[in-house]
């Protein structure tokens, strides 16, 4: 018997969605093993997780709140990966976006909310975008690998933020806590519902997903991004300005991650600190991959990952099983998606050894 791999002609939409769902399920199945080791019952644990994520209005709003930055960082990764620009730096871009929001929105400008909020958002978008444009320029000029640059810049940025919130930006009223001055009220994103933490950032994320979806399908820019991502040589031959297109992608990608940072500062915390993001930038990579780089899929994948995190927190409180289970589920679902994408490209055939003539 031999195993033969045949390239698939075309994987249908159903198969693509199926692989993503299967990846999530397989990850949950695999995580049952450590749950058993921790002395819990996987069924109970997952039941509690679902309850913790969707069981009440409060729980669901927390899941949506958690999903908000993930939608934006997920879109940031999805749009970049589509152009084969490997942005691993959404985490840093998120912080820089948040930093820009604080710089502009903590008293430097005094505008009514209708102007202040867009200003803060634009500042965060441009700052985050610049953080991705720089590595892209370095890549184009010197051939340096953007994976390495963007990844390492994350650590540079987080150290910069730590320095700033301990120093120049430190809030004198924070009683010694390393956190920045607060945003003025006009710069804060309104809550969606009273008494819940959900904020308008969610709407921004959903609109961004819709805009990206339209851009990819309907606009010349989306056409060019697809061409550059799928076959750079043919795109260049056809006259598509490859470098300029990549820079546009970089700006959009970094900008979306920057918006995620704006949302966390202006919608949730109100100030900047170096623990603003529990790895939203990195989780965005998983979200984008789970979504198969589709903008609409990103929203759904972000909800899944957010639910896992929020549900695991709640489950952990009830059972004593570590909430690190959530990281395990998310990491394993990425691995499963990567394995699954192999089956999207190839059809596996088992056959008896053929006689070579």
């Amino acid at each position, binding site marked *: 018997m031999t195993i033969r791999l045949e390239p698939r002609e*075309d994987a249908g939409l159903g198969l693509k969605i199926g692989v993503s769902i299967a990846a999530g399920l397989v990850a949950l199945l695999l995580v049952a093993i450590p749950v058993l080791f921790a002395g819990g019952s996987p069924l109970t644990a997952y039941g509690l997780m679902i309850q913790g994520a969707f069981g009440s209005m409060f729980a669901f709003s927390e899941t949506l709140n958690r999903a908000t930055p993930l939608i934006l960082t997920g879109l940031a990764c999805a749009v970049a990966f589509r152009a084969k620009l490997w942005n691993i730096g959404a985490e840093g871009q998120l912080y820089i976006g948040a930093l820009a929001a604080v710089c502009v929105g903590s008293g430097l400008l005094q505008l009514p909310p209708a102007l202040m909020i867009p200003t803060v958002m634009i500042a965060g978008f441009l700052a985050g975008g610049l953080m991705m444009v720089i590595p892209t320029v370095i890549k184009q000029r010197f051939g340096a690998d953007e994976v390495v640059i963007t990844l390492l810049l994350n650590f540079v940025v987080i150290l910069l933020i730590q320095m700033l919130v301990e120093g120049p930006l430190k809030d004198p009223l924070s009683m010694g806590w390393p956190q920045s001055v607060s945003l003025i009220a006009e710069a804060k994103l309104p809550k969606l519902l009273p008494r819940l933490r959900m904020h308008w950032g969610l709407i921004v994320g959903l609109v961004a997903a819709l805009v990206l979806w339209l851009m990819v399908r309907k606009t010349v820019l989306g056409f060019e991004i697809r*061409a550059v991502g799928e*076959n750079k*040589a*043919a795109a*260049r*031959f056809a006259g598509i300005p490859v470098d300029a297109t990549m820079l546009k992608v970089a700006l959009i990608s970094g900008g979306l991650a920057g918006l995620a940072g704006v949302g966390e500062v202006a919608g949730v915390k109100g100030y900047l600190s170096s623990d603003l993001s529990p790895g939203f930038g990195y989780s965005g990579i998983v979200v984008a991959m789970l979504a198969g780089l589709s903008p609409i899929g990103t929203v759904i994948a972000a909800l899944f990952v957010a639910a896992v995190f929020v549900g695991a927190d709640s489950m952990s409180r009830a059972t004593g099983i570590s909430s690190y289970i959530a990281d395990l589920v998310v990491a394993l679902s990425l691995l499963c998606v990567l394995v699954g994408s192999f089956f999207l490209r190839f059809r596996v055939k088992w056959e008896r050894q053929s006689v*070579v003539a």
Partner: protein
Amino acid sequence: MTNTPVLLSLHNITKRFGALTANDGISLDLHRGEILALLGENGAGKTTLMNILFGHYVQDEGDVRVLGDGGLTTLPPGSPGAALKAGIGMVHQHFTLAENLSGLANIRLGTEPLLSFGREGAARAKVQKIIAESGLDVDLDRRVADLTVGEKQRIEILKALYRDAKVLILDEPTAVLTPQEADGLFVVLRRLAANGLGVIFISHKLGEVLAVSHRILVLRGGKKAGELVTANADRRAIADLMVGKAVATVVRTPASPGEVLFALENVSLHGASGRSLSGVSLALRAGEVVGLAGVSGNGQSGIAALISGLAVPTSGTMRLYGETVSRADPRALVANGVARMPEDRQHDGVVGTMSVADNIAIEEVRSAAFSKMGFLDRKAMRERATAAIAGYDVRCQGPEAEARLLSGGNVQKLILARVLERGPRVILANQPTRGLDVGAQAEVHRRILAARDRGAAVLVISEDLDELFALADRFVVVHAGELHDAGPSEGLDRGTIGLMMAGQSHLRTEMAS
């Protein structure tokens, strides 16, 4: 030489890739102590034949026999391991060395069990003995990355000899060498042959084949075109064998050249080797097809890059309709009526995962024809694609089919539809029919000649001389980055072009006088 025993015998080897027959019933014998040259143009089937011999490909018919202990034995097809064991050593055009290891480590690599200690001394002694016998001098302890190309090649040859090769195959070994290094290699090869090795030397360069080989086997279009002993071979006869006789496919009426539409004036281009040009002048006239002949890698890609708008001259002037082109901008050229067919149509011509409609619109996607205010006009794109599919007989599922699902011939028809439907005034057809079957070839030729008759200026770049003779009104030959005018195609013959391709442009003048 033929009185020594046969080391290797290929019998009636046939290999097909889809519609293309790369090797068609080829037989050859290699004797002990003989250097056999395998000569042919690009695409003649040389490399395919050697890949079958070495077990990289499985032949459709025929077999490979190697001298073993009990006389000639048939090699199992498709097994490089068996070929190695039988004493066949291959030096590929692109080296297969681990750059971060020493020369000696590379030579030993794969010959010893995973856990082996204390064998280095024995291995070194064996390699040094081979070096002494062959003259393949090289520092065994330097990292391969620090060696010159010529030294790396020596390591490759040593690698084969270390495995007790009886037959050594060298695929275009001089392509990467300087003339001095090549001469050194020839000395080594003669010594190796004198010591009893059989050598197969693959090349498309006439001169070196005459210099080093005992016997020459000429391949053309996958078939054996001739076999001769080097000592009595005539240069001209071999050139004729290599390029073959005319097989007209399309009837070409006499041209009526008009004004110059595109011109290169004393253009030089600095770039990667094989792309550099020095002092090239070329004029493309309305209603005339110029055929560009040359051995691949002599500057064709540089000329193609200029006309395609992917490069601008380093010095000299490029003119389109008399105006200087100073910016590399494919879109501007396309908008000004330049049609470009890329050399590698699958790689540069289409985005495989995008649809036929997308690929037809791709060059002009920003123009008003296909977009408005930055939004795609899907309807216009689909209509254009539907018309193209019908008009150019592109066989596909429809405008939305992915381009990667199309066959090579249909991809070329797609590109023809993309570039010719605009009624271009200047056309670059780079290897327009490479890999296409005869029917598709004739169709492409017909379209190109129709465009010429409409008044377009055409440059055809091809490695297929038959094709150039079918299409071209005038010939230019590129060699080592320089362009030589060969004049009108009437009165030219293959042999002359073949010699000019080999850099013997003075012979043409002699014969003309």
